């Protein structure tokens, strides 16, 4: 297979993934809303961190670097929330939401 054919095949995979990734970000947004409703419980935050972690690795491997970087920041923010009692949800949560917005914006780049 020529390099051009490999590029074409990679682009086809990336296009398919972008559609899926958009849906995954919707799921992530829904999980954030659920966590808010549940009072930012540990199980909810851990589930979101796990999803952000997976999406960070996969989106970056598909060339969505800005989205991947935003998800890495989200994961770090969630870790701080989970690991350090002194971090206030009221301060950290807007950053988490902002990271989600940045991950979505990365899809348009």
């Amino acid at each position, binding site marked *: *297979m020529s390099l051009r*054919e*490999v590029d074409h*095949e*990679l682009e086809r*995979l990336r296009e398919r*993934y972008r559609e*899926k990734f958009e849906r995954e970000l919707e799921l992530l947004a829904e999980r954030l809303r659920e966590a808010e409703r549940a009072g930012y419980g540990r199980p909810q935050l851990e589930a979101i961190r796990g999803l952000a*972690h*997976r999406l*960070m*690795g*996969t*989106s*970056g*491997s*598909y060339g969505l*670097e800005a989205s*991947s970087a935003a998800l890495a920041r989200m994961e770090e923010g969630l870790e701080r929330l989970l690991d350090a009692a002194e971090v206030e949800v009221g301060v950290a949560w807007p950053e988490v939401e902002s990271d989600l917005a940045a991950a979505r914006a990365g899809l348009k780049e």
Partner: protein
Amino acid sequence: MKIEKVMIVDDDDDVRAISELAARKIGNWAVVSVASGAEAVALAPMERPDVILLDVMMPPPDGPATLAMLRDDRATATIPVIFMTAMAQPHEIESYLALGACGVICKPFDATALPDEIRRILREE
């Protein structure tokens, strides 16, 4: 070391898809792709891949547990295993190498460079 066949073990379909493409079309290798550690342990003795790319975070058995099972089987004990992970702080990489992996590839990775990265790790082994 000449690579002819690679086994990819990852529960994420999308990671498998892009890794497979890189291995087949850029590396020109045969690929066996599975979604779990259990499948890897069952198939590796028959498939005898030259190298196994093994995701760390998977539903049980996770990557380290899968590596331990591969090492316990005489048929797969010496197959080089490269961990793939987004958890790649220096102390984590050290712990994976201490478990017997010959290298670690960090996610996200550049698919077009993946075969060269695998070759580099195996050369340094």
